[in-house]
């Protein structure tokens, strides 16, 4: 069984603190893989390592067989990995549609000269990108908002916008960083439906979440981190019954 994403012996320290300590796992194609753990377990650090924002001290990250360690974030993204952010990183200086069109960036090839001179290659590209962006917005049920200024949207919509933007680049793997944070029950149900739709399209999803209901509901596989180490890994029903996991979250008796 070959993995889309294969992480081996990942290590990262900040000062004297070991944020990620020898973590290894594999994500199969077209699945929902969730990473959970108590606060401070190293989930966000793991995400930052996977996306190149931080460099691991040692270990390897293979994506479709390609080594990602040492690559700058923009290069990793250009290989077909996209991401949403826990603390929204929306481009508030642009409209909803423009935000998503930035997501299409890696699909474009026309040069700056072509853009400045408004050559056909740019014009064609613009049309294609706009179509793809609108598609992504429709997929997330936001197409009617596309011309609005992004800073006029409420929080829940902004979280969906990030997802639409991440999908616009036609990635193979999407990393969702606490997508349910701050959402109410209705919005969370919408979110789980959306994520399932994403996987149905053929995209693989790697999820970091605190919302246990959501995680156990939709995940194909769950990985539990604690103090930077892999505590347990398996299908949701097994993880939920694992005594080590329960102890980590609720404390020892």
């Amino acid at each position, binding site marked *: 069984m070959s993995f889309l994403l294969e992480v081996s012996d990942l290590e990262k320290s900040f000062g004297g603190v070991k944020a990620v300590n020898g973590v290894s796992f594999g994500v199969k194609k077209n699945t929902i893989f969730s990473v959970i753990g108590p606060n401070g377990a190293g989930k966000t650090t793991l995400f930052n390592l996977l996306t190149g924002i931080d460099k691991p001290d040692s270990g390897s990250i293979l994506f479709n067989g390609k080594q990602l360690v040492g690559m700058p974030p923009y290069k990793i993204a250009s290989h077909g990995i996209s991401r949403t*952010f826990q603390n929204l990183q929306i481009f508030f*200086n642009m409209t909803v549609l423009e935000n998503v*069109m930035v997501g299409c960036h890696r699909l474009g090839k026309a040069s700056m000269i072509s853009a400045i001179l408004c050559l056909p290659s740019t014009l064609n590209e613009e049309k294609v990108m706009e179509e793809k962006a609108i598609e992504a917005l429709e997929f997330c049920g936001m197409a009617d908002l596309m011309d609005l200024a992004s800073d006029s949207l409420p929080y829940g919509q902004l979280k969906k916008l990030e997802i639409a933007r991440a999908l616009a680049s036609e990635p193979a793997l999407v990393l969702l960083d606490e997508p349910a944070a701050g959402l109410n029950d209705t919005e969370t149900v919408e979110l789980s439906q959306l994520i399932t739709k994403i996987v149905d399209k053929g995209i693989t999803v790697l999820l970091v979440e605190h919302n246990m209901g959501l995680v156990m509901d939709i995940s194909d596989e769950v990985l539990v981190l604690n103090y930077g180490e892999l505590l347990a890994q398996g299908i949701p029903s097994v993880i939920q019954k694992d005594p080590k996991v329960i102890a980590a979250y609720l404390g020892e008796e």
Partner: protein
Amino acid sequence: MRLLGLGIFALVIAILPILFPENYYITVVGVTMFFHAILAVGLNLFMGYAGQISLGHAAFFGMGAYSSAILTTKFGWNPWLAMGAGALLVWCISYLVARPILRLKGHYLAMATLGFGIIIHIFLVQYDTLTGGPDGLSSIPELTILGWPINTDLRWYYFAAIVMLLSILFSLNLVASRHGRALQAVHGSEVAAQMMGIDTSKVKVHIFVISAVMAAITGSLFAHEQAFISPDSCSFFFSIELVTMVVLGGMASTFGAVFGAAILTYLPEFLVVFQDFKVLIFGGILMFIMIFLPEGLFVGLRKIVSYLRQGRKECLSS
């Protein structure tokens, strides 16, 4: 839509000297305004769209101007080749400085560009055997296009206008493209931009170099138009004027930059009436606009207009 605006603008510029012939404010000050507009449009790409700061752009203007002046007066070069050489020089220098400087952000970036600008200025003043020192260089030969000399106010007016309109067009095209969105993404959130596959340092370097070369070419044109160049034209104060044009007009708006350039070119002309109060009033206006209309005049005026329109509607309905 924007092209329509550009077209109307071009039309207005074209007929003004015909409607008001021999008018100093149109032909002479107008040329200066066109040069300022090109500078502002270029700087606006860097500051307004990409969200960076430069307090030293006058240095690039000066380097272009002095390259043209020195190569034509001291070495007898063809003015167009000299302009090209100046642009190439600035291209190289701005590229070299770009990477280390653009790692900085906010205040630090501002101070670094300020330092760079002043160092260049000091060099231009001190290296007087080459640059003529504080007195500058004069007798800069005129520009000719295929044998046709640009040697009257009117010819300079139309020539500068064409260059300006082209710069505006190129800027509008760039902004409406994938690259333009990449610029704005860098401003919006560098980390998110990177996750979209945008090499943010490359983007910043490229736009810095583009705006620097635009400034250099404008400098060369200025040198030929004035037939004279001195360090006074490219001092720290001029860098500040350029930044003010961009901010005053409204950042992230090509026409805003042109608007800002227009205001900052004509305002001192009108303030001359106030003689000794001129500097004081200028500073006051600057402060007032930045404190109460921080998004710039262009956006600010638009808001005032729509606010007034709303008010009128409410009056009519009641």
